[in-house]
């Protein structure tokens, strides 16, 4: 090792001496690396950010030798924004869930879980070293029994899983936050003599955390098995058709009736219903829920429509505006403006002669034709393997496609809102002024605050919280702002020697090519006017860019613009009716932007890495969904 490294360095020096290095020669390959996590500076105004995150998620000084030697990839797919202190529950929970499932439940032979660190508020992860051959063999024996059981009983286990998830969602929704009434009930004295509200408050909070943690084991239960089964089919397709793109392969497998489309279908149905009931005009006239209620409550038809709306809401409006992983994303049910606007758009489209039905039969037929086509290109001897792996992929896919609605949307909508119930109670007791403030406390800090409240309420005094938390929360809000303006690098630490762990590649889109692209961009190379990503949906479109960094900026999107975002959420689907193309920084094989774009016939380029930091709102850009490129046609302004 050492000898080789020296030889390379000597060569580099000799070359440097022989020819005067031009600027591009200054960085020789051996020197290239991502920033060392221990040399990352705190952005101005964010001093003290470390207090917002639990020690177990931070780079600790005494572990520098170990942690600096590893490559850390930024997880911008699930955590694109700065994490809030309380919202770390989705970091801790998700990595626990995927880790325990891989490592301890199924004993996936070649891969374990991931280490997690937060720096300047952004989440990074690093793979735990692969097991050695002996350990792999031991794990393989277990994996065969465990994964085999799942593969062979998939449909029954999936049906049972849906029941368990729904139960968990209801359980969170039904957690009772004790009202802290003036007196304990008389029944407590005469009948049950159980725990008091003081004790129940903490128990209820623990129950919230318990469900918040456990849901991630449910999330991961089938996920890697599903991806592994899909990877079989993907690999086989790529062996036979080296130039086939990932989207074509997933189209052969994916269902046409996916839960993530259901909320949008509900909006279409509500638009139709409004027209049938003759209340379309009243719906169009409303922009908020209050207006909707006042417009419609007076008539019988209006009442009928409102009850149809209520039926659709549960559960289909528990649909996050973002990834769901942040409390701040909120869901349709919390803010009806987007659904109301979308229903209005759909009413206009109905009047324009569009019947608004999703072409399920046509999509089904296209999917069948696609499979028939690729089968016809295969030799007879290759057909059985193709058919078998396709069939298994289709068995596992409903879970792969639908788990996201259950967990990230339905469950987390209920989870964040239950946390707000606790916050309301504490707000009443003077802890803070705003219900959203609770999210600036870490989970352990919330527990401390609850103990404070339970002591004060029990004694009949006043809690300390109002004298402690407001200053901390105010400071943390400033820090949060400062961190939000920081530009996190895509990776930290040394350049990885080899990226070949297939699930990493498939789930995170991290390939040797992406690593190379990051390095080039970091070193100031690469084109400033052209971005490369994955061809998500075919076609070419030109238009003005609209950069949308957060869900609350969605209403700025104008007709005919090109949406440029870090990552799109399924709940943005209604906006796709307005745009001409979409570009995202992040995108794996099951990327939502690509699926919806194809459905709408819009060109899409996903996984560009730097779309939102390179493109400015208002710039004219060309999206080539065939080649996977985005070209900036305007000179950047103000540069």
């Amino acid at each position, binding site marked *: 090792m050492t000898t080789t490294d020296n030889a390379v360095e000597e060569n580099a020096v000799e070359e440097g001496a022989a020819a005067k290095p031009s600027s591009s020669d200054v960085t020789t390959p051996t020197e290239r690396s991502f920033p060392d996590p221990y040399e990352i500076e705190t952005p101005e105004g964010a001093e003290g950010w470390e207090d917002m995150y639990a020690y177990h998620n931070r780079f600790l000084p005494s572990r520098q030798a170990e942690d600096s030697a590893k490559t850390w990839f930024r997880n911008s797919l699930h955590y694109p924004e700065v994490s809030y202190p309380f919202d770390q529950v989705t970091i801790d929970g998700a990595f626990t869930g995927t880790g325990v499932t891989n490592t301890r439940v199924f004993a996936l032979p070649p891969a374990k879980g991931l280490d997690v660190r937060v720096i300047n508020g952004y989440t990074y992860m690093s793979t735990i070293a692969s097991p050695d051959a002996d350990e792999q063999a031991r794990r393989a024996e277990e994996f*065969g*029994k465990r994964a085999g059981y799942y593969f062979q009983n998939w449909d029954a286990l999936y049906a049972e899983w849906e029941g368990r998830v729904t139960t968990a969602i209801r359980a969170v929704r039904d957690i009772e936050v004790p009202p802290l009434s003036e007196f304990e009930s008389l029944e407590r004295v005469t009948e049950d003599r159980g725990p008091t509200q003081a004790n129940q408050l903490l128990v209820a909070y623990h129950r919230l955390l318990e469900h918040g943690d456990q849901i991630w084991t449910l999330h991961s239960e089938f996920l890697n098995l599903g991806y592994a*089964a899909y990877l079989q089919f993907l690999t086989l397709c790529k062996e*036979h*058709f*080296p*130039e086939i793109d990932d989207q074509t392969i997933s189209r052969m497998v994916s269902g046409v009736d996916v839960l993530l489309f259901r909320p949008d279908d509900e909006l279409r149905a509500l638009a139709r219903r409004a027209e049938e009931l003759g209340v379309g005009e009243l719906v169009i006239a409303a922009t908020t829920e209050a207006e909707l209620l006042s417009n419609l409550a007076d008539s019988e038809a209006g009442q009928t429509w409102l009850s149809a709306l209520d039926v659709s809401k549960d559960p289909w409006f528990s649909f996050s505006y973002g990834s769901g992983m942040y409390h701040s994303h909120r869901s349709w049910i919390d803010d009806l403006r987007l659904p109301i606007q979308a229903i209005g758009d759909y009413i206009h489209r109905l009047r324009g002669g569009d019947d608004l039905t999703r072409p399920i039969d046509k999509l089904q037929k296209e999917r069948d034709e696609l499979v028939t086509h690729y089968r016809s290109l295969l030799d007879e001897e290759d057909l059985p393997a193709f058919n078998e792996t396709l069939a298994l992929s289709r068995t596992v896919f409903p879970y792969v496609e639908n788990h996201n609605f259950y967990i990230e949307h339905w469950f987390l909508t209920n989870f964040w809102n239950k946390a707000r119930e606790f916050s309301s109670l504490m707000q009443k007791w003077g802890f803070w002024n705003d219900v959203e403030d609770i999210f600036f406390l870490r989970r352990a800090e919330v527990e401390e605050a609850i103990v404070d409240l339970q002591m004060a309420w029990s004694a009949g005094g006043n809690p300390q919280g109002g004298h402690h938390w407001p200053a901390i929360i105010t400071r943390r809000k400033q820090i949060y702002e400062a961190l939000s303006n920081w530009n996190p690098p895509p990776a930290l630490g040394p350049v990885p020697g080899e990226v*070949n762990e297939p699930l990493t590649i498939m789930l995170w889109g991290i390939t040797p090519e992406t690593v190379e692209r990051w390095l080039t961009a970091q070193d100031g190379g690469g084109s400033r006017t052209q971005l490369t990503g994955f061809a998500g949906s*075919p076609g070419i479109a030109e238009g003005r860019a609209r950069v949308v960094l957060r869900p609350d900026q969605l209403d700025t999107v104008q007709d005919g613009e090109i949406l440029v975002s870090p990552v799109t959420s399924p709940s943005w689907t209604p906006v796709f009716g307005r745009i001409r193309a979409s570009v995202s920084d992040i995108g794996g094989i099951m990327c939502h932007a690509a699926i919806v774009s194809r459905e709408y016939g819009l060109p899409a380029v996903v996984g560009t890495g730097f779309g939102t930091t390179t493109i400015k709102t208002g710039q004219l850009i060309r999206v080539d969904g065939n080649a996977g490129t985005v070209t900036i046609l305007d000179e950047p302004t103000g540069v």
Partner: protein
Amino acid sequence: MGKYTRKFTELNRHDRPLVGGKCASLGEMVQAGLPVPDGFAVTVDAYEDYRDASNLRQELLRIVLGADAQNHASLQQAHNESVALILGSELPAAIEQEIRTAYLALSRETATRRGTDDADRIPVAVRSSATDEDGDAASFAGQQETYLWVVGADDVIDKVRECWASLYTPQAIAYRSELSVADASEASKISVAVQLMATADVAGVTFTVSPRTGDRSVIAINASWGLGQSVVSGEVTPDEYWLNKLGPTLTTTRIASKAHEYVPAPGGTGVLFRDVEVERRDIACLTEAEVLQLAEIALRVEKHYGCPQDIEWALEHHADGTAKVMLLQSRPETNWKKRKEEKSKNTTKGTANLLGFVAAATKGDN
């Protein structure tokens, strides 16, 4: 037609021993209703009878077997002697007459169809048509000669003889001098294709399998201005059009700077290599509709032969803006089979390892 010539319309793939691979393939394409310029084959028998009638056979064999394959001067001398013999000996009247009649029939028929008055002087391409199976040996054996824009029966006959003579390049002599007498004799059988010139303004090659990866779901079209040699010979970097067979749909277009082209010489015979005007160099030489038309025809050719093809074509634009595609030749593309054997090479060890475990689990081998 007679013993020495056969119209393409009378041929199919089984006629390879009689008319060589190229003519058999053209006949097969005509039979399949594919757009191939009309023409005829000068059969293997024509050359065989010529060699016998003029007593050339023994003489040529002596020259070939007597050449020293390691000695350049010796090969060059053998080449000169053989060519002089073939071009200088008298062609039996029966053979000459049959070629002449076949050409004039083709020429007059075409002039009538086109409504032109050059009834006896319609330009044709004259090319060797090798009889061996895979075509690999043909290049060694000098059976790949092509003459374009040949006009009039006399010139056609001359060029047929030059195709015959092209069996005796120094390289071909070196190749055959190391074979047995029987094999050398077999490797010196030759047929010639005489085919109407496509007056193409764009030409190129279509592969019904990806030449870069062997992917059978892909069609690749290379095209450039003028006649097809510029693409086939590699003298010009052609435009590339990549399609998915499903549809077919155009997936990628790469426009090259096409600085040169071959065009028919002004005198009506031969071709000219010239610069392309600046304004035409960097624009696409095919419209999307033309690309799709070429792809659809290519799929028909592939379907007809049942395996991936490498197709040479030419495109003739009419005054009304429409374009007519003509197929000049189609050969099986054999590389994809080799690719298939090494297909798993792109699957990383990590993936193969994981999939091994998954396959075992799904099959319940535990």
